[in-house]
Each structure stands twice: as C-alpha cells, then as structure tokens.
C-alpha cells in the first residue's frame, strides 16, 4: 500500500489542482444559490487527501534511495523537455510540510473568511498554490522549476489582489507581480545560459556536471548571479523586498502560506542549484552579501514597524536572508532545516496574530495591548512561534541556527556575528510585538477581544503542538546536529543573545518607559520605519528610468515614426493644394503652357540636330 502510494506520489499536486478547479463553480457568478462555502470544504478534502497520501508515502520513502520519474512533455529537434520528478525522502517530506500547512491554513481560512463571499476564488488560488509548491518540490528540472515559479508569480498576483476594490491591494499586487517577475526573468536568462554550458537542466545531472565542470569563471559567475536573482525576488531579498511588505494587503490565511512556504519556494530552487552556484566564488560571496544585508536590514526594519503583519513579513525576509547565507557557504542541509523550522514558526506566528486582527480589527500594534488575560491560546502560540523562530533550545530554529553558526565558526567568524545579530534583532522585534499586543494595559481597540472561534484556534493549536514536537520528530529521524560535536560556545552565544534580547525588550516594553518609544535620533527611526525609503528608491531609480524611456519611446513613435508616414500624406495633400493653382482659368495661360510644352518637346526631340552648333555658339 505504502509502496504503491510512493510510486504515485506525483498525484499529490494533482489533488490540489483538482481541488482548486472544483472550487471555481462556487464563484458568486456561477452557482448563485448555495453560497460559497462548499468550495472551501472540497478544497479541504482534497488537501487532506494530498496530505494523507504524502504522509503515508513518507514512511515508505524513509531510508530509500531517491527515485526519478520521467514524464515526456515535449521533444523537438535538439531539445528534449522531459518533466523529471524526484521522489526522495526530502521531497516527500517537503510535500508533507506543504500539504500539512496548507490544510491548516485552509481550516483557518474557514474561520477567517467567514464573512466573505469570495471563497471560490480564494480557495481555488490556495489550491493552485498548493499544487504549484508540491510540483516544485517534486520537480527535478530547473526548466520546470522556472515554469512553476512563474505560475506561482501569477498566483501571487491574483491572491494578493483578492479584494481588488481596495486601492492598496491593487498596487500591492502589482508590485508583487512585477518585482517577482523581474527576478524570474533574470532566472530565465540564467536557465537559458546554463544549457549550452551544462547541456542539461536536470538537478541531479547538473550536480554531477558541477563536480567536474571546467568553465570560464566570468561566464559561470554571470550565470550564477542570474540564477540567484530569481530566488532573490521570490525570497524577498534586498533590493527586491518591497513586494512582501505590500503583499501583506492580502487576506491573512494566504499570508500564512506566503510567509511559510511560498517565499521558501525560491530558497528551494536555490538549494537545489547549490552545486552549480558553488562553482563560482563570486556567486557564493554575492549570496552571502545579499543574505547579510537582508537579514540585518530586514530585522532592523521589523523592529520599527507598527503594522502587525508587516512586522512579521520583514522577519520572513530576514530568515530567508539566513537561508541565503547558508546556501552561500555551502550548507545545504542547514538551509533545508532552516526553511522547515522557519516555515512552521512563521505560520504559527501569523495564525496567532491573524486571530487578533480578526476580532480586534486594527493591525496597529500601538493600538493593541493587554490581550494576555483574554487570549491565552493566541499568546501561547505566539510565544512558541517566537521561541521556535529564534535560537531557544530545544525548539526548532535553535538547531538550524546553531548548525549554521557552527559551520561558520572556523571559516567566517564574522558571519557568526551576523547570525547572532539577526537572532537578537528578531528576538527584539518578536518580543516587542508580544509585549505590545499581549502585555500592557488594554486599549480601546482591544478592550473586548474574545478568543477567535474554533476553526481558527484548532489549526493554531495543532501547529503549536507540532512545533513543540518538531525537535523530537527531527531527533527521531536523526536530522538534528549531534549535540556532542557541536560548538558549545556558539550555542551559548546564541541562547544568551536570544534570552538577553527578549529580556531587555520585555523590560523596555512592559516596564514604565513612556510609549511610544522614540529613538534619540528621529531620522534613524523613520529610516527603519519606512523600510529604508525603498518605495522612493524604486521610484527614483528603476521606475523613473523606465517611465522616462517609455515616454521618450512613445514620443519618438508619435512624432518621428508617425510623423514620417503622416508627412507623406501631408506632402501629397499640400502638393495637390498647391498645384491646383496651375489651373488659372485664363485661356491665354493655357495657350502659353501648350506652346511651352510643344517648344520644349520640340527642342528635346531635335536637340541632336543643333546640339553642336548651339554649344559652339555659347562657348
């Protein structure tokens, strides 16, 4: 049974896709009488099937060698595009994580989207996302990864733009699409340039090729930079990070998915490409540099936000930056572990705060407070999510961060500093959120704030339990780094940084220091609060440039190209208008022209007879 399910694990993306398609008829325009809820239920069933399938298959795949499945797609002269699927324990566990988180997010959405009519659209897009992500993790071909990434980019556009009657949603969806699109197009350049070098797009073959590849260092550096540009946009790394901030305009349940798994889709491709990327030291250092800048910058920004969802979106960017660092220093497994632990903690955090937003309405953390006594479950979920995200043993991310720092300790100690800084800053930002939401006195907005109803609390609690059990699960699968061989100094530094930052922040925000807290230098605070003025930066550079060039091209088209063609018409028109005056109405003038014509013609015809004499005469 399990073996059969393992062999047919490629059906998992199909379940989700079918679920997504089946949700469509409950759009308000098609089935008008029943209301939209069946769309959600059908999707839940299909996602549950997918989860069950992949969970059973996971048992069968354990301690098995990876298998490859080939599905022919298109074969033309000189190019064979076969969809290669890799069925390994890693990919199937990724399926379990994706379908599991999607299942929880969909149950959550049943509660959250209760007062919304757009279930058909919402759930079909969630189904599309689930299908895309499952297909991405199964897919073992760079080309088809790119195809799926592009489909997911379109999906992001539609999902962020769910409530399109809000102007900020429309601009946010636009930015999310275009920013990710730019990265994807660079990725396409890399994908196309890799073909003549490697002759394959299969990740396994690419890895084999990379072991013995002898290529021009400049060429592979350029290809590698193009290849990381795609994940850079997907993972919301600097400078392509603004879209994630604006994508927070979308509904919360989709945010769960986006923060936990969708941004990780870029990281997945990055991890898969790691053998190719490590061919060029320039690319590796670029990844580390991007990761460092993003993780430090984004965690600083996260501290300065007042919008609950945006606080968390920048933490996501920061952790994806850590993944970039991990891939940049060739720590493949750490990156995967980090993606897993981050996904679960980030999902838990979004679920917890999504419930707060759901019935406290405001997203402004400065207007919330004192929810600890009223919302204990959300608060505990938030605490566990926080501890699972920062380095706090024995919860998930501690192991990933320790492993990362441990690997860096000998070679690049300054990166350990970065990891510790990011950890400390994230701890500060999450503790700040916790203290502002759950601590302090109840404000007007949070005075009457009951716990959310069961469809929102249930997935939160399940995920809470899972995130508490995650270390045990990982331990039993012997994925966790061995405590005995770990560098205890690093681990202690990380733990100390988490505890001290949480402690200091808690004292600052729960103590008697006047709120809102102001930095001594207001400019710096605004600098972080407006995320380094990135929108202005975009407006002044790329948008300005493209807009000006477009205007110029438009003017050239209107005036030069159109002008030349119109000039031909105008010239004929004016020619007619001007030449008609040759018809003067004077009979004598006509006689003159007749005579002139006859004499010129006569001279021309007889020119040869008197040419010599005439020329002699005038010379």
């Amino acid at each position, binding site marked *: 049974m399990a073996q059969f399910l393992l062999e047919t694990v490629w059906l998992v993306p199909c379940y989700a896709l079918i679920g997504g398609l089946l949700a469509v008829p409950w759009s308000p325009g098609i089935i008008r009488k029943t209301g939209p809820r069946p769309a959600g239920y059908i999707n839940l069933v299909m996602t549950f099937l997918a989860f069950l399938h992949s969970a059973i298959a996971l048992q069968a795949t354990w301690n098995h060698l990876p298998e490859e499945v080939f599905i022919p797609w298109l074969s033309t002269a000189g190019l064979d595009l076969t969809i290669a699927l890799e069925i390994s324990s890693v990919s199937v566990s990724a399926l379990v994580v994706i379908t599991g988180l999607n299942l929880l997010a969909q149950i959550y959405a049943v509660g959250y989207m209760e007062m919304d009519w757009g279930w058909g659209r919402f759930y079909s897009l969630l189904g599309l996302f689930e299908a895309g992500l499952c297909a991405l993790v199964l897919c073992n071909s760079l080309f088809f990864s790119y195809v799926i990434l592009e489909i997911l980019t379109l999906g992001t556009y539609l999902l962020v733009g769910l409530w399109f009657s809000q102007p900020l949603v429309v601009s946010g969806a636009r930015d999310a699409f275009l920013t990710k699109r730019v990265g994807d197009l660079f990725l396409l350049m890399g994908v196309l340039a890799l073909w003549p070098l490697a002759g394959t797009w299969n990740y396994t073959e690419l890895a084999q090729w990379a072991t013995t590849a002898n290529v021009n260092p400049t060429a592979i550096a350029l290809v590698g930079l193009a290849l990381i540009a795609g994940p850079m946009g997907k993972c919301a790394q600097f400078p392509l990070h603004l879209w994630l901030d604006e994508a927070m305009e979308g509904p919360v349940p989709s945010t769960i998915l986006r923060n936990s798994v969708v941004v990780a889709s870029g990281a997945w491709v990055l991890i898969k490409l790691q053998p190719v990327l490590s061919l060029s030291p320039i690319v590796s250092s670029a990844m580390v540099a991007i990761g460092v800048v993003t993780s430090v910058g984004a965690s600083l920004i996260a501290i300065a936000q007042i919008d609950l969802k945006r606080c968390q979106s920048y933490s996501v960017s920061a952790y994806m930056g850590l993944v970039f660092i991990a891939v940049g220093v060739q720590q493949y497994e750490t990156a995967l572990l980090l993606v897993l632990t981050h996904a679960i903690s980030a999902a838990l955090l979004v679920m917890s705060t999504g419930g707060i937003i759901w019935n406290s309405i405001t997203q402004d953390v400065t207007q919330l407070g004192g929810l600890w006594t009223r919302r204990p479950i959300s608060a505990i979920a938030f605490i566990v999510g926080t501890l699972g995200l920062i380095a706090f043993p024995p919860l998930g991310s501690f192991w990933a961060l320790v492993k990362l720092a441990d690997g860096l300790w000998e070679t690049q100690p300054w990166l350990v500093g970065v990891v510790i800084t990011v950890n400390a800053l994230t701890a500060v930002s999450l503790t700040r959120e916790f203290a502002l939401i759950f601590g302090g006195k109840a404000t007007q907005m949070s005075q009457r704030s009951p716990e959310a109803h069961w469809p929102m609390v249930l997935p939160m609690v399940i995920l809470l339990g899972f995130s508490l059990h995650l270390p045990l699960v990982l331990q039993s699968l012997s994925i966790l780094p061995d405590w005995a061989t770990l560098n205890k100094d690093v681990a202690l530094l990380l733990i100390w940084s988490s505890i001290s930052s949480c402690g200091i922040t808690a004292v600052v925000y729960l103590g008697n220091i006047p709120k809102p807290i102001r930095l001594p230098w207001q400019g710096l605070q605004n600098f972080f609060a407006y995320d380094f003025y990135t929108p202005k930066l975009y407006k002044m550079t790329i948008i300005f440039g493209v807009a000006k060039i477009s205007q110029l091209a438009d003017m050239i088209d209107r005036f030069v190209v159109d002008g030349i063609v119109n000039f031909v018409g105008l010239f004929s028109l004016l020619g007619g208008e001007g030449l*008609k*005056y040759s*018809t*003067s*109405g*004077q*009979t*004598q003038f006509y*006689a*003159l022209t007749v*005579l002139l014509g006859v004499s010129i013609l006569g001279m021309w015809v007889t020119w040869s007879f008197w040419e010599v004499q005439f020329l002699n005469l005038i010379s």
Partner: protein
Amino acid sequence: MQLQYFLLLAAALFCIGIFGLITSRNAVRVLMSIELLLNAVNLNLMAFSNFLDSTLIKGQVFTVFVITVAAAEAAVGLAIVLAIYRNRDTVDMEQFNLLKW
C-alpha cells in the same frame, strides 16, 4: 537661298502672333493674333510649295483650305466673343477666369 527668308519671315510673323495671342486683353485682338498665326502658316505653305513642290503645288491646295477654315473659325470665334459679351458686358480676357481650380 530664297526659302529661308520666307520661312524666317513666316516664323517672325508666327511669333508676333503668339505674342499677341498670349498678351492681348481684348478677345477680338486674340482672334486677330490667331489670324496672324494662320497667315504665317500660309506663308510657310506657299513657300514650301514654291520651292520644293513646284509641279504638284500641294502646298497651295493646303493654303486654300487653311484660308477657308480660318474664315469659318474667325466667324465662330467672333460669335463666341459676342455671346460672352452679351452675358458679361466685356471682352476683357482677364475677366474670363471663372473656370479656375
């Protein structure tokens, strides 16, 4: 060498006629210029018939025909001038520029 002188005289007459045809403002004077043209042609024909075809004198036959046709043409021309004069009370050629562009 007699022929050239006749021809030159005829050409001169023809050119005078052309000048009159194109510059005259009086319509009758235009008709008179046309008569000059035709008579220049007649001179040519007579000269050619004398010097080149003195036996068959086809040129003289042509000349008789030209004189006849010229008389008819002058009559019709004057009739047209009269017809225009009746309508417009003038024979000034510069007033007859109604059929322009």
